[in-house]
């Protein structure tokens, strides 16, 4: 199952990383080279293996339903790239481009 240039485009889209056109072919080659080594695993018979989900058994430890949470030394407005009135701002989604605006 060789990774194609189109696969790289698709995966980059899923991972939200812009990839330069000129890098697509070489990335496909690199991923193929790495995945080629992974194909070793096909030799292993795992038909009867019961995969353990997560390490350390005994199940998940739960917490009681009360606070306070682990605190923040400074509010989000001090580290977020852009904020207004406590909101974190991002460019509007293309799907909401047509949304009406309230008076500022």
């Amino acid at each position, binding site marked *: 199952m060789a990774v194609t240039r189109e696969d790289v485009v*698709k995966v980059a*889209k*899923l991972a*939200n990383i812009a990839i330069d056109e000129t890098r697509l072919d070489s990335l496909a080659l690199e991923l193929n080279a790495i995945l080629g080594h992974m194909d070793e695993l096909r030799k292993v018979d795992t038909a009867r293996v019961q995969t353990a*989900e*997560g*390490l*350390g*058994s*005994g*199940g*998940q*430890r*739960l*917490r*009681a*339903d*009360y*606070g*306070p*949470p*682990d*605190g*923040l030394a400074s*509010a*989000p*407005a001090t580290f977020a790239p*852009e*904020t*207004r*009135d*406590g*909101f*974190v*701002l*991002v*460019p*509007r*989604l*293309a*799907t*909401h481009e047509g*949304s*009406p*605006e*309230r008076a*500022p």
Partner: protein
Amino acid sequence: MTAVTEREYEMVVGLEVHVQLKTRTKAFCSCSADFGAPPNTNVCPVCLALPGALPVLNHHAVELAVRAAIALECKVHETSVFARKNYFYPDLPKGYQISQYDKPLAEKGWLTIGELENKTPVRVGITRVHMEEDAGKSVHDRYNGVTAIDLNRAGVPLIEIVSEPDMRSSAEAGAYLRLIKQILSYAGVSDVSMEEGSLRVDANVSARLRGATKLGTKTEIKNVNSFSAVERALDSEFTRQVALLKSGGTVSQQTMLWDGARGETRPSRSKEESHDYRYFPEPDLPPLALDAEWIARVGREIPELPDARRKRLVDEYKITPPDAELLTSSAGFSEYFEAVARASLDPKGAVNWVMGEVSAAVNAAGVHLDEFAVRPADLAELLRMLRDDVVSHTAAKRIFARMVETGKPPVQVAAEEGLQKVDDDSALAGWIDEVLAENPSEAARYRAGETKLQGVLVGLVMKKSKGSADPKKVNQLLPERARGPS
């Protein structure tokens, strides 16, 4: 016009209901789960997805989820697994939602709809109940050109209840939703309010020729914010699908948004981006292991569910099944009723007042029953005053209205407003004389033998006394006073 067309086709509906669990804190961190705080103030390293932060599951959220699953007749698994659902959205801080995928909390439940509506009962299968976390809120219309993100809601615990495609009409879908809401409210799992966003519905709908066994291609309707909107959206989408099929077209599997104002569904503009969520087991959370004995105990501790309560109310208070149905439509009202009925020893009166005056007043005030000014004990007292003839029915309604405004007990209101029954002859005689004097022509005709005017005149006396006059006594006194003191 569509009726004929649609008769050949059958609607097939499955519903995905998201319900917010009634916990104090979020699912995976100890931030408050309350609504209404200023934006991004109920946040911490975990729900902001700061680098290095890790989730720890809320025990109470698990308990409520298990309670819901049992109330919906599901089999709760002793081991379930959390998984990451990966996608980018600005109000999804981690870039994945912690959910459950191939090993959900509970599966294979069911509930029966139609009984309440006196229709043929329909059993609707519940495919699964799983736990997940909510995303934050994206506000698109507040500022020019940007989306504003508030993460207070991010990480609040939810369950998703997925039904089988067992419903065949929008009415059945509505009945299913009302029943789910009722059950979860009784079980104390959630506030189940669509207005407050603690209950959200996505509807999957497809159309097929009647008699066909294969399911048609479905669409998923989102953005529906009330049960009646769900029903209208289903009808509208079904009509659209049938029209497509009739004209030889095909339905394409897609997400539709409900536009309530236009009364139509339209395709979601969000790019479907192949929707490859890349689920895999959440490595930050070991499998959730629940002890069988603990699951059983949670089941035993579930508060009485609506079905059981309906039957008990009929048995215990000798009220009619339709009355019991009305009362149990809400857990709060049936509890209020029971308190009034027990204290007043007048179940029939309690039914009438709770479903009539109380329900109207609560709706008018737009408050929760818990916050309603008239407490059950006070209403019971009022019913006792009525039964003991201390107040007239008219006066009782006036007293109740004042109780709603002031929260004062009925005895106090009656005294303050002079609404206790007046059977003192001299007071009554005074009011009657005034009425006769103020309405000379009616008085004359009455005296001349037009006895059918008796009712009119008694009514005027009652009105003058603001309802406090004892009508029986007025009826007795009127002929005597009309004859005149002479």
